[in-house]
């Protein structure tokens, strides 16, 4: 068999696989890598762009229940990794932490883009007044076909009346950092995020170190591996693995994390521009953390 004949067979096989992928991802935000590999319809770009890139290890103010390789406005704010899509999106989310009464986070995040510029803003509230805090966050960056990067900042204010005096006022704190991602080819994307490069005033509720991730998307399957260093290098790094499978408008995913070993199960469903997602993580000692989100994203009408 000649090389040309092989190429011809390969091209036909790729077209057939692309048709199958279009059927699967058409009704759910999918990874850009998948879109590039399988989809020609630019109308689905925005939906596909919601997948891939960062993981959700150690989130605190905008803990979105997105599949392992997906990105949402909340994820953009939390990690400084810009969305590939410039389409506007809004996300509302609720997190109930470890079954602890009065420890819940409610947040709203917006994201939009123009050409290669990406921006996001959000506000969240965690906990009751004695322990809780309010956060406002901004992220600004750029994203192209093969890479993206952004800076993010979050300002917090404690709700307690007798909060600690600090440089930015009683109970006030600021953190800033950023993230980058780059496509490595063959459906693989690498990312790095350092969300707390700079802190001032009241210390954040959770110290977050450098997060390094790699994701791989193939057809209906996506895989994500993440390593989160302890901030300042003190302590052991945490590792996370996630596997998502999509079928029509539904995506189901499993995640596993160490320190201590635990797992999460998530489910997302898309109806038109609306995506509802939920995930439950079971901690061996602390119990379950439940995350719910509602994402409204206008499909991108690109070429």
């Amino acid at each position: 068999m000649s090389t040309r004949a092989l190429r011809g067979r390969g091209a036909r096989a790729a077209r057939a696989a692309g048709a199958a992928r279009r059927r699967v991802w058409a009704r759910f935000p999918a990874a850009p890598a998948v879109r590039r590999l399988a989809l020609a319809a630019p109308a689905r770009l925005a939906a596909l762009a919601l997948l891939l890139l960062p993981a959700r290890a150690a989130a605190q103010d905008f803990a979105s229940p997105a599949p392992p390789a997906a990105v949402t406005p909340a994820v953009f704010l939390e990690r400084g990794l810009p969305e590939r899509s410039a389409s506007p999106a809004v996300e509302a989310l609720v997190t109930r932490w470890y079954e602890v009464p009065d420890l819940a986070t409610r947040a709203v995040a917006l994201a939009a883009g123009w050409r290669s510029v990406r921006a996001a803003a959000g506000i969240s509230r965690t906990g009751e007044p004695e322990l809780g805090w309010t956060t406002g966050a901004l992220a600004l960056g750029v994203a192209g076909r093969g890479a993206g990067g952004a800076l993010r900042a979050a300002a917090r204010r404690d709700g307690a009346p007798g909060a600690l005096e600090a440089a930015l006022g009683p109970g006030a704190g600021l953190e800033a950092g950023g993230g980058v991602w780059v496509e490595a080819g063959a459906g693989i994307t690498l990312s790095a995020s350092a969300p707390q490069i700079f802190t001032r005033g009241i210390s954040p509720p959770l110290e977050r170190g450098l997060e390094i991730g790699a994701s791989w998307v193939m057809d209906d399957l996506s895989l994500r591996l993440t390593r989160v260093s302890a901030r300042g290098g003190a302590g052991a790094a945490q590792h996370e693995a996630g596997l998502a499978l999509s079928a029509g408008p539904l995506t189901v995913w499993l995640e596993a994390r160490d320190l201590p070993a635990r797992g999460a199960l998530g489910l997302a469903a898309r109806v038109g521009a609306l995506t509802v997602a939920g995930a439950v993580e079971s901690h061996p000692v602390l119990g379950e953390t439940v995350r719910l989100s509602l994402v409204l994203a206008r499909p991108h009408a690109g070429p």
Partner: protein
Amino acid sequence: MLPAGLLTLSLALRAPGAASVTPGSLPITCSRMDRTIVAEVFYDATGDDTGREFVELFNPAEAPCSLAGLRLEAGDGAGPGRWTLRWTGTSADSIDGSGHFVIGGALVEPPPGATVALDLQNGPDAVRLVWPDGVIEVVGYGALVHAEYFCGEPAVDAPSGQSLARVPDRSNQGANALDFRAWPPSPGRENLSKRDAELIPGSLALDPEQPEPEQGARLSGRIANRGAAALGTGEITVLGVVASEPDAPPLFSHPIPVAIAAGESASFAAETGPLAAGKHTLRVRLSVAGDAAAANDLDSLRVRVGAGPLEVTEIQFHPGAGEGEWVEVRSRDPAPLDPAGFTLSDRGGARGVPAAGSGALAPESLAVFAQDRAALLARFAGIDPARVWEVKPWAALNNSNDSTGVADAVVLRESDGTPCERMSYSASGVPAGVPIEWRAGAWAPSRAALGTPLAPPLTLAPIATRFQMTPRRVRAGAGSARLMWSLPWERARVSIEVYDLAGRRVRRALPETPSAGRGECEWSVEGLSPGLYLATLLARAETGNQALRETAAFRVEGASP
């Protein structure tokens, strides 16, 4: 064996069974079997030596021997020529063939042939017999350097309570080290009889040390065969009686089921049967046919059955505020009780005696035994000084557990040695500086940071939830918080772990610890970086399979510049 004899060489010489001579000194000899010899020297009685020292002479010949003119001298091995006279035989002093003659203090039993305060020194020293004809026999013991103080080689330095005895009585091997050994005192008797079983003094023990009333206990001890012949299986019987009930049948009669060779020893254990509550003396006796020495067949043990008159209620084994270690006790006795009549020790056994308190302790009253009374009173200014007793010597209580999970024991005894209370404790889960106290039927860390000497345990107010932390916002660095729990069980085992918001365990605030249903502990957040944390109480009922988990969130406050 070489014949003994007098040598008058001008050079130092050592020969078996014979003598060595130091130039310019008296000739020195070892034993001569044709005349009376030294058979036993008892120079270091347990406790005060006064009146208890003796030197036993033995006549190995068949004919009687006069001791007239015989001199007994004591030598100070610290320097040459330091001999002093202790006794001189008179014409009335004689010794039968194969007989013994004891020169000793007034307290020697049986009474000695010559009563003399010998005032012998502990080794390295010597005694010698100087006969009127110039023949000398020396017995030296300890690490002697001057040759005039020993024959051949010095004997061992006998430990306190033991004699230096010639074993067997006619041994004559040419060196003190070969003829003499440490041996139980046997004044006026053969050192090595044909049949002699000994109940080794101090070897008796009861397990448990303080049995419950009407419960049995296991009495153990050791028996030695001090005779020349083996004692066969079943030939020795151990008999036990309660001293206050001499006419009652023996508590036990226990034949020793093994043979004991000459010079060997064996242990025994016998069940006592039910014992009545109170304080008793158990008398234990060996029964052996043909035993040559009845005196070493007896021993006794003071025992307490049931609770003693004092109980331990609080122990400070790791003081952190300079107050010294202390132990709080409570009187169980219905009559006033004098704490000075007790001793306190740790697991090691050094018994301290209370002093400096005053007066008797009323029923149910508390007293404190302190390592440093002044420091304790300085730290707890409001307590009654009359009920604080300083114990000397104080046995330092251990702060960390051994491999068995026990840190140490607080042991109370009456001054005559009768057990009163033994409390073994674990240091696991006890915060630094916090005493442990007897509360609601169990030992637990005190609810007061420094404890409550001379006061009952603090009563905890009820809390609204199963688990809470106060305050919920703590400053990073040196802040601390109180962890409080209220469980649906009377007793439980609890542990508290701390996690960050990412679910990583960052600290164990309380290792698994036995606790009452309502409990508290103080916890320092030192070393914890600022952030939001989750303290999780894990509890399981002490009986049954019930368990629960409760989580409380808290903030450690800190700021970046």
